């Protein structure tokens, strides 16, 4: 049975319609993984001598054990965003003589082999090696490593529980934030010293391996709970039973002011509000708005005015970036219909432009309170907003004409790479870094005010040539119409 499952899985990987197309992204991910491995290996090797040097009067082993709790908290947090629930196309299997138990065990077992679970080994093994070299008992180091492995698996299965909780209840990030934040607070204020508990456990377990029964037990419980969750999903009615949402209909009469683009704008607003993925990217707006707070109160950055424009581009353009990068893929589900309907391409694109421009203006207005940190920031934000309206909107629309990736609107947003292709990465550069480069350059050559003026002028030029550019962009979309229709009708 296992053999069949594995072969199915390999086929689904190599035969998927998007295989090969997403290669750039895959290579990037592999590079990222390699980079992490190298960093972790180096850390693992340097940890023992490093700690010895910095804290000569403490035993590095104990320091590390004290830190393990935070490592796992971080691990859990990162996993929530990067590691997906294990999936398998189970529907065709349900009628075949395969035990449900086997399917669930296989899926869960597979998740235990995830890359994330091996990451910590790259620290633990070299560190253990150094421990043994400095005279620690080999046997107890092995037991210690085993205990860490158990903790990792606990985090692994805990993550899936949190994920399924948040995906079913539409709470998006809330559960993970509450859990990680809660644990941290409990520990920080010493209400329950979890880090201490873990540390003393890890210190003791080496000499008394029986203690490892405790994490084993926790692991077994979590596994059982995951098993229960997944098994409940293995019935057809889970996918057939449509969670019928009650509709909050609204006429959005106010969009009438946008003239012939009004129906599209209404649709885009509904798109954003009624679908999981675009809705979550709307929540990112909040993060974008407060992005400046990470920098401006910090005197290190406050003295770097050339950086203001970059933050300005980001703060006023967060929606533009988030929404714009997937034009027209947001509409990929019904793209065929749009193309067969009585629609002028130019009108469709203009509605997107209007929406993005409106968002920049609204976000700029909302970011006015940043003036608290100095009028220069307001000026830089204004310049960035004008640049966003004049240049970046067009860049986004232009980039969209290369978009060939379908998006399933009902999937969650955070770190969902569906629909992401090389285009998004390439477009990112002119979008974010070009204005930064221009602004920085002019700032160093002349001064801050002139740098702002340059951005504003560039933006104004873009606004003046809006019609021209739209004409060009429309022709690009027309050129790639058939390719887009074809790509959007394929399931990734």
């Amino acid at each position, binding site marked *: 049975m296992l053999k069949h499952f594995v072969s199915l899985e390999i086929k689904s990987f190599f035969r998927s319609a998007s295989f090969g197309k997403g290669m750039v992204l895959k290579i990037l991910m592999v590079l990222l993984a390699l980079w992490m491995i190298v960093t972790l290996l180096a850390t693992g090797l340097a940890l023992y001598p490093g700690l010895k040097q910095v804290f000569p009067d403490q035993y590095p082993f104990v320091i590390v054990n004290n830190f393990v709790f935070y490592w796992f908290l971080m691990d859990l947090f990162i996993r929530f965003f990067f590691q997906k629930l294990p999936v398998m196309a189970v529907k065709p299997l349900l009628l075949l003589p395969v035990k449900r138990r086997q399917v669930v065990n296989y899926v869960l077992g597979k998740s235990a082999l995830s890359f994330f679970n091996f990451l910590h080994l790259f620290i633990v093994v070299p560190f253990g090696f150094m421990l043994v070299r400095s005279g620690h008992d080999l046997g107890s180091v092995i037991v210690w490593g085993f205990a860490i492995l158990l903790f990792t698996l606990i985090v692994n299965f805990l993550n899936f529980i949190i994920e399924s909780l948040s995906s079913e209840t539409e709470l998006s990030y809330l559960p993970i934030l509450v859990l990680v934040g809660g644990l941290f607070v409990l520990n920080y204020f010493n209400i329950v010293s979890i880090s201490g508990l873990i540390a003393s456990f890890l210190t003791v377990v080496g000499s008394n391996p029986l203690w490892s029964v405790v994490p084993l037990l926790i692991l077994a419980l979590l596994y059982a709970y995951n098993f229960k969750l997944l098994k409940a999903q293995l019935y057809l009615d889970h996918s057939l039973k449509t969670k019928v949402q009650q509709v909050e209909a609204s006429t959005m009469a106010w969009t009438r002011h946008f003239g012939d683009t009004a129906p599209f704008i209404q649709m885009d607003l509904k798109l954003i509000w009624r679908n999981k993925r675009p809705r979550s990217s709307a929540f990112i707006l909040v993060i974008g708005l407060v992005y400046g707070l990470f920098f401006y109160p910090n005197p290190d950055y406050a003295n770097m005015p050339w950086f203001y424009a970059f933050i300005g581009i980001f703060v006023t353009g967060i929606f533009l970036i988030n929404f714009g990068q997937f034009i027209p893929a947001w509409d990929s589900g019904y793209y*065929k219909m749009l193309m067969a309907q009585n629609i002028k391409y130019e009108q469709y694109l203009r509605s997107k432009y209007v929406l993005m421009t409106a968002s920049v203006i609204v976000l700029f207005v909302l970011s006015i309170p940043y003036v608290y940190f100095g009028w220069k920031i307001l000026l830089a934000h204004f310049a960035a907003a004008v640049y966003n309206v004049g240049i970046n909107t067009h860049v986004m629309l232009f980039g969209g004409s290369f978009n060939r990736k379908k998006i399933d609107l009902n999937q969650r947003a955070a770190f969902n790479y569906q629909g992401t292709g090389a285009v998004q990465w390439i477009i990112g550069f002119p979008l974010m870094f070009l204005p930064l480069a221009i602004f920085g350059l002019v700032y160093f050559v002349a001064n801050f005010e002139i740098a702002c003026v340059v951005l504003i002028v560039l933006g104004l030029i873009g606004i003046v040539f809006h019609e021209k550019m739209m004409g060009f962009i429309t022709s690009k979309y027309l050129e790639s119409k058939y390719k887009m229709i074809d790509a959007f009708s394929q399931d990734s």
Partner: protein
Amino acid sequence: MIQTSQLTKRYGDKTVLNIDSLNISKGQSFGLVGNNGAGKTTYFSLLLDLIQPTTGYIKNNNIRVSQSEDWKPFTSAFIDESFLIGYLTPEEYFYFIGELRGQNKADVDTFVKQFVDFFHDEILNQKKYLRDLSKGNQKKVGIVAALIGDPKVVILDEPFANLDPTTQIRLKAIVKDLAETKDVTVLISSHDLMHVTDVCERIVVLEKGEVIKDMATNTATLKELEGYFAGSATL
């Protein structure tokens, strides 16, 4: 109304459609039948300019569909569920299509009211998104939406599939009415020989992308079609 000339569509070496000439006159109800892979949907996709022909062209009211978009105002279609916008309610979807076709809300409301029977109380005022409707009900919405705004050419791919018997009968009445009294050119593809002979004045059989039979419907047509398909089954 619709002229097809030297039309071929090839994917690699494989020719999926090869129609030398096929003209459909105004107000005709036209049926396209053929087994899976015969090229019915390909032909409709070419007609809607969703794919590009390898050679040849289709003219819709003397407009070459791949060169100008001017055929769009008087042509409408429902090919499959990808023509629906899942996150809208049926009403919102109708309004949206109406808006694209120059109809205001009131127009759409009056228009949709004619189809109350057809909808069988399962579409309007349900407070449901299209994605939550059943396949059959989605189809009803798509078909009715394709009729909004007095189109002169209506293209329906497999309209009878997935519909319940009552709705199939009602749909037949609607299609007949369109062609007979409103002078609309209706193009339908179907696997259901009985329905298609009931509804269409003219039936074309496609096989492996080529026109095998082209006949005006009469009392003998159904027998002839059944004979043809039974014959190809024994091959």
